[in-house]
């Protein structure tokens, strides 16, 4: 493939896919270790009604109203979960599952009933985004990377996921020690004067920011998969958290790149006519990576295996 073909058609979707995958995988490491992996699932579901309502109120698909809508929906979800848990006397996991599926379903209904035909907002986009359409038509080839006129036409989603990735990385960098200590031993962290509930809340907020930014570009399937699969696979490769983070980034990048290529060319290689959804393929690749590490990863441990 030549630069003239690759740069306008594939470079930006690939970068957006990679940035979104890494932005979700990074906080996913801590969510999985805290046994809060469901939160990623939850956030990406709750985001939908929030974004739809934001669109209905403002009439535009723009980053700020969408983020606010998603944040408002997250608050509603948290209140709902608490209410269901207390009033119904139901365990938290069940209350979460109930809330998120209900809110997501409500989002689907809202979406169907509202006039969103003029914008990129429908159920398919909510699930698997529009990665393939995030192309850079003004680019003529690699030289366009140095052409200010062409650069000005880069898809705005690229900047959003890049900003989310920078934000997530910065948060993990600065809050690394409190995150690690409070994830491993919350009581001890409190005796060290750490505000563990604030740290936990900050982690969820950062994950939500990554989810909303990624959701916009790549849909909820990737968001859910990237919060869980690369970190879980990475855990099976190492017994050190910093190394685990590195593996999870590697797996996220591999999933995004391989998934994008396989979705675009895989079906053609085996004789089918059409490409398949890049988001679906990226998520599938991440699942396959997890399966492979679960079978052959060096740091697997049987549940309940006795300490050596």
């Amino acid at each position, binding site marked *: 493939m030549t630069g003239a073909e690759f740069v306008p058609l594939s470079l930006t979707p690939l970068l957006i896919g990679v940035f979104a995958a890494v932005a979700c995988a990074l906080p996913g490491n801590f969510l999985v*270790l805290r046994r809060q992996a469901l939160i990623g699932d939850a956030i990406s579901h709750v985001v939908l009604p929030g974004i739809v309502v934001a669109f209905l109120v403002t009439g535009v698909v723009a980053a700020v109203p969408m983020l606010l809508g998603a944040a408002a929906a997250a608050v509603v979800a948290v209140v709902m979960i608490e209410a269901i848990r207390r009033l119904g006397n139901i365990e938290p996991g069940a209350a979460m599952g109930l809330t998120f599926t209900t809110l997501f379903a409500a989002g689907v209904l809202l979406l169907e009933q509202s006039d969103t035909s003029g914008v990129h907002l429908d159920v398919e986009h909510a699930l698997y985004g529009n990665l393939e359409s995030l192309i850079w038509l003004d680019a003529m080839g690699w030289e366009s990377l140095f052409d200010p006129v062409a650069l000005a036409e880069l898809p705005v989603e690229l900047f959003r996921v890049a900003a989310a990735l920078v934000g997530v990385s910065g948060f993990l960098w*600065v809050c690394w020690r409190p995150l690690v200590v409070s994830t*491993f*031993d919350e009581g001890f962290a409190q*005796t060290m*004067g750490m505000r563990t509930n604030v740290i936990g809340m900050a982690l969820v907020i950062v994950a939500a920011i990554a989810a909303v930014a990624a959701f916009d570009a790549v849909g909820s399937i990737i968001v859910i998969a990237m919060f869980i699969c690369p970190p879980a696979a990475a855990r099976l490769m190492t017994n050190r958290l910093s190394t*685990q983070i590195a593996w999870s980034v590697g797996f996220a990048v591999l999933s995004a790149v391989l998934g994008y290529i396989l979705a675009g060319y895989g079906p053609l290689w085996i004789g089918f006519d059409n490409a398949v959804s890049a988001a679906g393929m990226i998520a599938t690749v991440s699942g396959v990576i997890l399966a492979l590490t679960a079978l052959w990863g060096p*740091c697997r441990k049987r549940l309940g295996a006795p*300490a050596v």
Partner: protein
Amino acid sequence: MSLELAANDGVAPTGAGLASSPLALRGMTVSYGQKPVVFSVDMTIAEGAMTAIIGPNGAGKSTLLKAALGIVSPLAGQVTVFGKPLAAERHRIAYVPQRASVDWDFPTRVIDVVLMGLYRELGLLQRIRGQHRDKAMACLERVGMAGFAERQIGQLSGGQQQRVFLARALAQEADLYLLDEPFAGVDAATEKAIIDVLKSLKDEGKTVVAVHHDLATVAEYFDRVFLVNTRKMAEGTVAEAFSAENLDRTYGGRLATGQIDQLDLVAG
């Protein structure tokens, strides 16, 4: 009641008693849901002594420690640490939680757990240097775990895990050590190693408080006891407060007479 007065006998608090006590609770009441787990407990820990907190299962022993540390918020009650509010003197306390309270599958090595004890020194971003590693290794040395520094924590036995927790507390270089069942489910070698370290801490003038289950070793290991069953039952030196009568009241008759007889107690 003579038990109250007993706080000034035996291994007595040095200095002005209550005002400078390493740990003093007043009217501590904690409840999970409707039922109070700890009710209106006053506790004054003697400086430089080893105190065992004793009581039946569910008597609120761990909760008492957690309330003292601010991990659980009490319904009522005050905590003073070395005569000051907890927040001001937090850095003088080291806490060893119950071993079962954390996930030992966590991807971290022994040395990294001990380095967690240096968080106050390191802060958010300061790099870990040779001096920090040396200090962590010295703490591991003290509990006999230096050879395991690079191991993943899940590969340790229960007793070894407990010793790593103790090493992390040592790294904090505190004046008051609060331990939640440090001897629960550990091997004899570990029990010996831990009690040796705790006694050496006492020799350095530090104060040690441990939730303890094994009544048979109370007299051998500890100077003072604090008996609790939701309410304070007794407090004082082992010789005075660790009596058959107090144990009987604390355990509500759940200890068999034979068990109490074996303890070779002073007459209640």
